[in-house]
Structures are given as C-alpha cells and as structure tokens.
C-alpha cells in the first residue's frame, strides 16, 4: 500500500530526547539522555551523537551503566563491545585507532516494547574482552562477529538442510536478515567514521566505553499499536509526532527510540521496567557456554509461571550464539556456536511461534525482543491447540517427545535449549518429569525468585536433583520481581499480540516472496486481504478438544483460526470404492460433491500422531463457499509450503483477536450489507449486545479461589 512512502518517511524522533542542541558546524548534535526534563542531570553517563543527514546516531555507553531503551531500532557496535540480552556485539574499531575506517557494521533489529521488560545495552569492560576484541577485529570482516558467522553458516547450511521441512524458508529464516538497502552501506559507514571523529575528547579518553551505532528500523511493527487499546504506546510515546516531508533534507533523526534512564522508567516507559540481568544469569550462562564447548549440552529450563524462564532462555540462546571463545579445559578455544536448537514447550506463550504450537527452531541470530517480534518459521512444529497441556496431556507429552527426537535427527550437534511451560504442580509435575526422562538433560536450570529459594523453590530443586542425578542443576534468580507486576498486558493480551504480529505479514499478493521475520504490514487489514481458495476435497479437517458432528463441520470452521498440518498418515480410500458402486444409497445424492462440498473429516477418535505431523503454521478460514466446495483461507505461510498442507486442525483454544475481525470494516461499503436497517450490524460472530442474564458469560477456569477456613492462621 503505502510501503514505499512509509519507508522513505523521515525519522522524526530524536526530538523526543528533549535537550537537542542545534546542529553544530561539525554536524553532530549532542543529546543528553534524560528524557524527562525534571530528572537530575547525573544520569548522563552516556551520550548520543546524531547525524544531521542520515537516520543514524552514535550512542556512547559507559561500562557499568547499562542503557535501557524503549522502541524498535537497528543497532551495531562500532567501538568496543556491548551486550543486549546476552547477545555480544564487538565493534571493529579500537579506541586506539579511532580514525580508521570501520568495516561495514551489520545492524541488528532490536525490539524493546513496554509489553515486556525493556532491553538494556550494556558496555562490556575492555579488560575482560580485550583479547576477543582484537581477535574479532583481525579475523572477522564484520563487527558483529557472532551474527556474521551465523549468517555465513546459514548460507552453508541451507544446502545441507535441503531435505528438512524448513527448506522453503531457508532464504528468509535469518531473524535479523541483511537489509535491502545495501547500496547505502558506504554512505552509512562514512557517516559513522565522520561522527566518530567528532566525539569529544572526554568520551575518547573514557576507554572501556562502547560506541553503538543506532539506526531507525524499517519494520513498521509500531503500527501494531493501533490494533488494540492495550497495545497503545508499547513502542512509541504518547506525544504527538509531527511529520516532516520525506524530501526535506533537514536534520534527520531516529524515530521510535527512547532512552530510559533508571529513575525515569515509570514515567517515560509506560511503567515497563528494564530487564536487569542478575549475576546468577551470567554465572550460569558462562558455565553452560563451557559445557557447550566441551560437548553438546541438553539444557532444560524449568520454573513456575512468570518466573522469567522465557527471558532467561533468550539470554542463554543469545549467549551461546555470540559469546567470545572460551578456553576449555584442554586449552583449545572453542568458537561461538553458529546455531542453537531451541524447543519451546509452552503453547500458551511460545517464544518463536504463534500461540497453540510447540516447536523446534534452529536459531542462528540473536533473539532481541519479546515473542511477538521474533516469530520464526519452525524446523518442526506440532499443533497443540490450547494454551496449556491440560486439555490432552498424553498428546502433549508425545508432542514434546517428538520435538526432542526431531532435534536428535535434524541437528544433533547443536546445543539444545528447552523452555518448558510453568505447569509444575499436580499432573504438570508428572508431565515435566516424564519429559525430563525423555530428554535426559545434561543441565537443568531452575528459574525462581531468590526469596523463594529457601522455601518451595528450594524443595523443588532438591526434587530435581534426586530425580535427575546425571544432570547438573543450576539455580537462577528471576530477572525482576517487579517485571510481572508492572506490565499491563496479561497472558491473553500477549497471545493477541503474537496473533496480530503473526497474521499481519506482507500479504501474499506482494511480490516480495521470501518470508522475512522482520517485515510486517499492519496497514492492510485482514478483511481486505485476498485469500487463497482451496478445495475442501484436497484437505482433511480435524476438530480437537470438542467433537463436532459432520453436518456442523463448516459452521464450526467458518471464520476461525486453524492449524496448517502436513499429515503423513495414510487413509483408507473410501471414495474410489464409493464411486465404483454408486449404489442407490438414499443418503448419497447423485452428485456427491454438492451434498457435502467435498469435506473430509478425520474423526475425533483418531488422535493426531506427532511423529506423522508437522504444523507449518496457522491460517484463518475467512469464508466457506459451499457451492464451489472451496475454503477461503488467509495465512502468512508461503504458498509453496501451503501446497503441501493436507490437514486443517481446529481447536477452541486458538482464538482470533477481535481486532483482526473489525480492522478495516469502516471502509467496506455499507451497501454490501443486507438491508437499510443494518447500519450497526457487527461483523459475523460478534455482537454489540451486552451479555444479559445469568450465565451469559463464557465459562472461565476457576483458579486461586481460596476458602475461608475458620481456625486457620
């Protein structure tokens, strides 16, 4: 739609950072970091130098004072070394040789919305990384050595992995793929060098500081804010933004970056606290990096709900991908891992796939953002169809077992990180132990609040040690006790975020064929997107968790989210036999297709077999055309993958956020609606009517209702 216009949109924002000095003759504007003018000035440990011509700025981060930020940007280390959520980035330039031309910096997309705790950029002290910095500078052509190595490996691997399911994605599966504007690399590099030259002497002398180049992002992800009221201002600020014409060559800046000083995160960041990395994370991660250098670790992360398992899993994956070589006991230096296998067993809030799935991913680039910004095509995924294993524990256990088996088959030499769900009580405990037996992990990481360690968490750790004596059990503190309580979005909102992010990819009609994890089109409503028409005859349909009579299959399917499954099961060929003897069965009309539109249903009594299925993603059955026997289907999955899908699975646990149903309806002609009285007709399957009467609300699970017992306490 307005993609071209939007991407050339000027970057209007560093004026969010209030104290913008006018562009000096040297061309660099100095921007102090406090966003809020009321803040004390002492928090200016870092400084920002903004390019007057490009959407580029240099951020100087002093060691020991991490910089938390909100927004979406691209970053690359230029001088020194920095870390973001465990991902280490090493700049190509040394403080001692500032004038030298830095080689092209590979920018990585970083997403720090206030729907999760905010990311921090921290400088890594020069003393600890001096060897690695010089190593990477001399050997690597890229500053972000880890990420660069990853991309090289990927190119190599895309050939080797040709036989696997994800073949179709190989071209676009790099989360932080190179940007299309490579022709402007020289321009940016030259500007970085020029800005480096303008750094004040005080900054230059502060050795150990890290200079990070920051660019505006081009993903359009911030448009997600308009979809639901609760998403408002998760990436941008409330302050009205004034637009500048794209042709103006005036002072450009970086939109959607907001530096959050430690004292101000309440006021400025919409209450999301920064992710403060506890020391126990670094200690555990470095132990695990050593283990990965010595062998292939199977790391299983366990803990209760909201303990911070997912964030730690990302931290660990990023560390494994980018950590500097470590000296192993044998004395040899092991390189960072080009790829890490990641299994997510939490179908409620999976880290890399849309809700309702459990999946195995081959991760080759750091995961720099919360789940909805890092949705990746899976190496192997299975449709669970609910936000917890409760609905079908046996099937769930088979699914996660199959994912481990898939890792053993597909990428056995890559370190494995498994994130479990937070169900550790009752049957959840048994499920977890069963899974641990299946995986037989080398390392068990238990994430829990430090205060709980003396109580139930400590007990759980002892149980883990007894149960799994061969594994090393590492105790890790929750990142921030404040985080969970400060974030306004609940689990359902997070699922909605992921669903919106998942479906609002550039529409299939767009010529840019390969799937890119960092491209969105949130301005073309789902209701306006041309669907695929697929013959019901070429698919099977399966309903899980609720049995649906065959006559009601289409009523149950219309307008819902389904799992797209490649099903390797063989089925009996009734149809041919039936056609051979079109006997006068009264219930079978002459033209069989017209009677039941060619629908084929796998009865509920034959459960999905995880070993035989692969869920390539989700789709919306946006309409059913009974006359032609066609389903109209919307999905971000590429068409060449869709062609292999032969089973649709529907489960009540996977919901389409209502904003996707209503988005864009304003501009659909009222004339298309039934009658003159329909001016307020809501879209199908919704109503504006209030729920009236007893029991008018849908049932929800009864949790945490305690009884008042007399005599207790």
């Amino acid at each position, binding site marked *: *739609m307005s993609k*071209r*216009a939007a991407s050339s*949109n000027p970057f209007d924002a560093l004026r969010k950072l209030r104290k913008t000095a006018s562009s000096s003759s040297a061309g660099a504007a100095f921007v102090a970091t406090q966003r809020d003018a009321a803040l004390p000035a002492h928090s200016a440990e870092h400084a920002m130098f903004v390019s007057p011509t490009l959407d580029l700025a240099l951020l100087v981060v002093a060691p020991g004072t991490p910089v938390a930020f909100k927004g979406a940007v691209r970053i690359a280390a230029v001088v020194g070394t920095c870390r973001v959520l465990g991902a280490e980035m090493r700049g190509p330039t040394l403080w001692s040789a500032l004038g030298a031309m830095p080689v092209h910096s590979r920018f990585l997309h970083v997403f720090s919305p206030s729907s999760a705790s905010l990311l921090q950029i921290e400088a890594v002290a020069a003393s600890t990384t001096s060897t690695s910095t010089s190593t990477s500078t001399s050997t690597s052509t890229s500053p972000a050595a880890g990420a660069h190595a990853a991309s090289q490996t990927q190119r190599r691997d895309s050939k080797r992995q040709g036989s696997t399911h994800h073949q179709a994605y190989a071209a676009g599966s790099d989360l932080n793929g190179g940007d299309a504007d490579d022709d402007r690399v020289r321009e940016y590099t030259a500007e970085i060098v020029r800005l480096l030259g303008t750094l004040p002497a005080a900054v230059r002398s502060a050795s150990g500081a890290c200079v990070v180049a920051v660019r505006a992002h081009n993903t359009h992800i911030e448009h997600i804010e308009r979809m639901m009221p609760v998403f408002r201002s998760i990436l941008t600020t409330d302050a009205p933004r004034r*637009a*500048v014409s*794209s042709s103006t060559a005036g002072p450009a800046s970086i939109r959607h970056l907001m530096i959050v000083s430690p004292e101000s995160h309440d006021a400025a960041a919409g209450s999301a606290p920064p992710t403060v990395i506890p020391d126990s994370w670094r200690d555990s991660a470095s132990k695990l990096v050593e283990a990965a250098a010595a062998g292939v670790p199977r790391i299983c992360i366990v803990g209760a709900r909201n303990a911070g398992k997912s964030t730690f899993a990302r931290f660990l994956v990023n560390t494994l991908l980018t950590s500097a070589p470590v000296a192993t006991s044998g004395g040899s230096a092991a390189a960072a891992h080009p790829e890490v296998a990641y299994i997510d067993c939490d179908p409620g809030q999976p880290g890399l796939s849309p809700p309702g799935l459990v999946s195995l991913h081959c991760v080759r680039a750091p995961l720099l953002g919360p789940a909805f910004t890092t949705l990746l095509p899976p190496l192997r995924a299975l449709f669970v169809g609910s936000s917890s294993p409760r609905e079908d524990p046996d099937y769930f256990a088979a699914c996660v077992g199959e994912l481990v088996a898939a890792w053993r088959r597909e990428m056995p030499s890559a370190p494995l990180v498994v994130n479990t769900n937070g169900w550790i009580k009752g049957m959840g405990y048994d499920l977890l132990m069963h899974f641990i037996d299946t995986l037989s992990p080398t390392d068990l990481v238990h994430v829990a609040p430090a205060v709980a360690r003396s109580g139930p968490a400590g007990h759980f750790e002892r149980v883990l040690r007894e149960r799994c004596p061969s594994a090393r059990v590492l105790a890790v503190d929750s990142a921030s006790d404040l985080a969970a309580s400060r974030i306004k979005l609940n689990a359902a909102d997070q699922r909605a975020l992921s669903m919106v992010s998942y479906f609002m990819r550039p529409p299939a*009609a767009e*010529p840019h064929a390969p799937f890119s994890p960092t491209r969105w089109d949130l301005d073309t409503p789902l209701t*306006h997107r*041309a669907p*695929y*028409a*697929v*013959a019901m005859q*070429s698919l*099977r349909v399966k309903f899980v968790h609720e049995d649906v009579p*065959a*006559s*009601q299959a*289409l009523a149950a399917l219309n307008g819902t989210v389904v799992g797209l499954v490649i099903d390797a099961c*063989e*089925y*009996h060929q*009734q*149809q041919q036999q039936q056609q051979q*003897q079109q006997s006068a*069965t009264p219930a079978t009309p002459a033209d069989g*297709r017209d*009677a039941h539109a060619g629908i*084929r*249903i796998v*009865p509920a009594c*034959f459960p999905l077999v995880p070993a035989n299925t692969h869920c390539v993603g989700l789709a919306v059955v946006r*309409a*059913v055309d009974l006359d032609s026997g066609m389903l109209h289907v919307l999905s971000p999955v590429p*068409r060449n993958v869709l*062609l292999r899908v*032969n089973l649709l699975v529907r*489960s*009540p646990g996977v919901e389409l956020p*209502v904003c996707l*149903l209503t988005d864009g*309806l*304003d501009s659909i002609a009222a004339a*298309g*609606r039934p009658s*003159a*009285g329909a001016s307020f007709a809501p*879209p*199908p399957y919704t109503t*504006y*009517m*209030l*729920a009236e009467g007893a*029991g008018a*609300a*849908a*049932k929800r699970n009864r949790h945490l209702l305690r009884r*008042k017992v007399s005599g207790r306490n």
Partner: protein
Amino acid sequence: MRRVPRVVPWATTEEWEWAYAALYSGDADAQLRAVRRLKAWASRGKVPHAVESTGNLVEISLRDAGLLSALSDTELRLQYSMAFIRFVNGLIDQSQKGAFAGSATAVAESLGLPAWFVELRHGATHDKLPPLSLLRTGRTHALDWLHANYWAVQKSFVADATVKVHSLLREFKDAQKAALAVNAASASKAADGGQAAGGVRAADDAEKEIQRVLRGLDEVVSGDNFPDLVVPVMLSPGFLVPVAKRKRAQYGADGTPAGLPHQLAQLWWRFIDACEAAWQGFAEELVVAVVEFVASAAAAGEHDDHQPDEARPGEAAAGKDPRTSRSFVGTLAAWAVSIIEKLGGGEQPMDLARVARACLASPGVLSLHILDAAMSRDAELSSRIAPVRAFVEKRMRIEAALAHNLRSPEAAVAAAAAAVSVVKPSPDASSKKSASGKRGSKPRADPEAAASASPDTEAWDARNARLEAEMDAIRHRVQLAKNQHESDSVGRAAKRVKITPAADGQDAGEGTWTLLDADSAWQPCPIGCLPSGTVPQLDLPRELDDVAVALQAGVLQIPVGASSDALAPWHHTPADEPAVPDGVDAELPAAADGAQTRPRVRQDHFLDPMSLVLL
C-alpha cells in the same frame, strides 16, 4: 473510534434466536438440530455458560426415552448428575467475587437459584447418586430457570429497551414542543410588554418534564449501548425526520438538501447536546449512522415522494419503505451536516476522518454532501482527501454511465474510456509501474488509508498509483460488463475457480491454494463472509451425522492401521449390534458390502416418540 464488539460463537443474532426457539420447542427433531449446532459453537469457543448448560440438559433428555432408552438408568443418572453439577457450579463460579470463595448456598441465593438446586448438586457430588425421577425433575426446573433467567432476558433486552427509549423520545419531543411553545408565547407577550405567571409555570413544567425524560433515558442507556438503543430510534420516522413531509428539509437546486428547517433544529438540538454531554462520541456515532443509512437507502433505491402527507398508508401499500424516500434521507443528511458544522471542531472534536471514511466507502450524492461538510471543518483532512473525493465523484459518473449503457457493452466501454481519460491524473512513468505491480491487491479505493495516514506518508505518487489501480479496476469492470452474456453475473466469477480433486488423498499439488486476485472478483468483506457480504448457510446434510453414511460418502476419513475399536466410543453402538468399524482393517468391506447386507447403525434411536412424552 469504532466500538469493539464481543466475540460470540453464533454468526448472527438470528442464529442465536433460532437455537433458543429450537431448544425450547419441545420438538425432539428441532432440539437435536440445535444440540448439534451447539457442538459447533463449542468448537468455536466462548459459549455462554447458560447456553452450554441448556445444551447439555437437552441432549441428555433426548437420550432419556424411558423404557426404550439405549442407556441404563445408572448411565442416565450419571449423565444427568454431571450436567446438573456443572450447571450449578458454573453459575456459582461466575458470581464469585474476590479472593475467597463464598458458600454455594449464599451465592445461589443472590442469584435467585432455588436452594434445592444446590442440595441436589451436593447430593450428586458427595452422597448417594440421586434417583432418576429427582434428576428428571431437576432437569425440567433447570431448563425453566435458564429460560427465565438467561434466554428470555437476553432476547428481550434490546427489544424492551428499544421500546422504552422510543416512548421516552416521544415524551421528550412533546415536552420540548411545549417548552418551545411557551417560549414563543412568552416572547410575544414580552414584546407586548407583560409576562403572565402561568407562562412561567408552564415553562417550569416543561423543563421538569425534559429533565425527567433525560434521567429516565440515562437509566436505560449506557455509554456502551447508546448506538444500539438511541441512535436507531432517532433515525426512525417521527424523530429527527418528522412524519409530515412539509416539515422536512427541502432540496436545493444542486440536488443536495438545503439547511434544516428552524423548527426541526430547535426541537432536537437540546436532545443531541444532552446526549453528547452524557455519552462522549454520541454525535459521531449519530453522524456515522446517518452516513451508513443514507448509503443503504441509496442501495435499496430511494424513491421520490409525490404523495401528500396524508397518503402515507398508500405509500406503504406500494411496498415502499417510507425511510428510503428522498425527503427522508435528505433530511437526515441535513442533520449530519448540521451536527458536523456545530460539533465538528468542539473541545472534544469528533473523529472527522472516520466520518470521511464512511462517506467514501459508500459514495453517493448525499454522502459526498456530508463529506464536504466534514472537509470544510478540517483543513488538514480536506487537503488529504480532496483528490480522493474528486476521483470518487468521477467514478460515480462513470458507474452511472455504465449502468445506463449495460445493454450495449461497446457503448459502455466507450463511455467509460472517455470518462477515464478525463480523470486520468497524468501520472509519471514510475507511478504507472507501481500501479501495475499492485494491481489486484487493491481492487477498490482505499479511503481508509487516505483518511488515516498522516500526510507525509501519503506521498503524491502513492495517491496517483492508487488512482491508477482504480482505473485498472474500472477497465476490468468494463471488460466484465462486456462479457456479461457469457456469465450471469460478475459475482459468479469467483466460483469459476476450477476444482482439482486430490489424486488419492495425499498432497494436493498445484492448482489448489489459488490466490483470489482481482480477476476472480474477490472483494474485501468481513471475516466469515463471502464477498457478497453475507454468511452463507453452512449446514451440511444431516445424514452425514450417521457414521455409516458419512463413511460411505467418504466424509469420514479413517487412518490406515487404526485399531478397529477406535471408532467404538465415538458412536454409541449398542452391544448387540456389530461395531461400525468392523471392516476398517480389512479395507472397509463394510462400505463395499453396501447397505443391504450390513445392518445400518440405527439412526438416532433416541429420537423415540417416548422422549417427547418426557419433555
């Protein structure tokens, strides 16, 4: 800001009402249909607890055929007990507030749930399984209770409230008329030099009455539902538009309505102001409703009203909706313009971009008239929309030309081509290129983007590209019109996608997953709808619910190697009958044998007349 609707499992209110009627019809066949539809709802999710409970209780009742039941008494008692326990517990759980659970009895009392419901639940849970007779009584009373406390309440809510709002609005109209009359009288008396005490009292009375009506309205209506309750009533005859045609707005020479008659404006502005004060966004909803109403009236074909006022019955006899008459919609449009002019730029200005989107989505003479009012209130909006507006107006002319010339396609093509060359926005080469690249993805104008995007993202070349795409769409439609003798209607084109049957049930291969582009006449429409904008009827033949029939039709798909007893629990087959999937492993001889040799699964044996007795 568009309101956010609530997700429900039924497609339309009519579907809900159909299920309600069927479940309480006493007709076992209708009940069975409804129970099956409720299973589809369960798969969709978000089924109200009361609906689920009703379905459970009715379904078991259908299995309970007295002596002829396929189930033993114990089975029935277990089923009734579970349905009843879940019915009571679900209600109580929903009413639990706070961190601590209250006692079931106390919550039941607050709900108006009979105490013996809670006792029966307790007995079924903890004590001896209650006898069948008691459970049947419980079932009957539970269904009655659900009827009185959920179904009837939900159904009548909107209807009752609408009736109430209707009468309150009439009372307001009378009171305001009285107040205006008193004012007029006192004004003339003041002109004469005196003021009667009676006039003051009458004015007080009228004012009191107005206040009473507004308070009454506030009790019935809330900020959530005023668009459902108040706005539709205001758009019905006798309110914003007087019944008497001479009191309505007159049309000007240019075909658009002139301003509102003074009397009419005086009558309702007080009310609109009060509503806007009470519920923020009222004026905006009202204007958008008027725009949509005007559009749908235009679609229904507005008609001239030559008849004098007294001839209204005759009008109805002629089968014409009085609400689609020219003077009716014209007066509504005049109201919209008046409201935009007065409130469009107030302290809490209405979302004029939304109004503009609504106008552009269904352009007509009147909606463009309203659009002009919105544009005159907002210079920024105006500059953004002006080219779109110009284009839409020209497209209207082209379509009018096409409509007149449909019988001779060549003439239509010529006329449209002429029109196209007139509007062509003289694009440069690059925009032409991007237009052809985007062709198909956007077959219609995109007023949404035009109105919502900020000006900087609406670069001129993008506008031109869109106009170009629109030109393509029009040329395409001309082509379709030309081909009309080949196909009955343009809409059918979507169905001409060829069906490739799967070779042998495995990978579908090429030919499926066809993207519906502009050539297939697909149009944006709500999720769940076909491009025609309607939810099709989705019931498949009932016979398919019979496992044997469904197997034979190939609707049920049985995995090879599945264990032969896998189907058994799926369908309640009495032990004396051969289980349905007997032949599954042996390449389905059941299907091959045909219906004659194999005893067919008894069709819905619970549909026995005896079940009617029990209901």
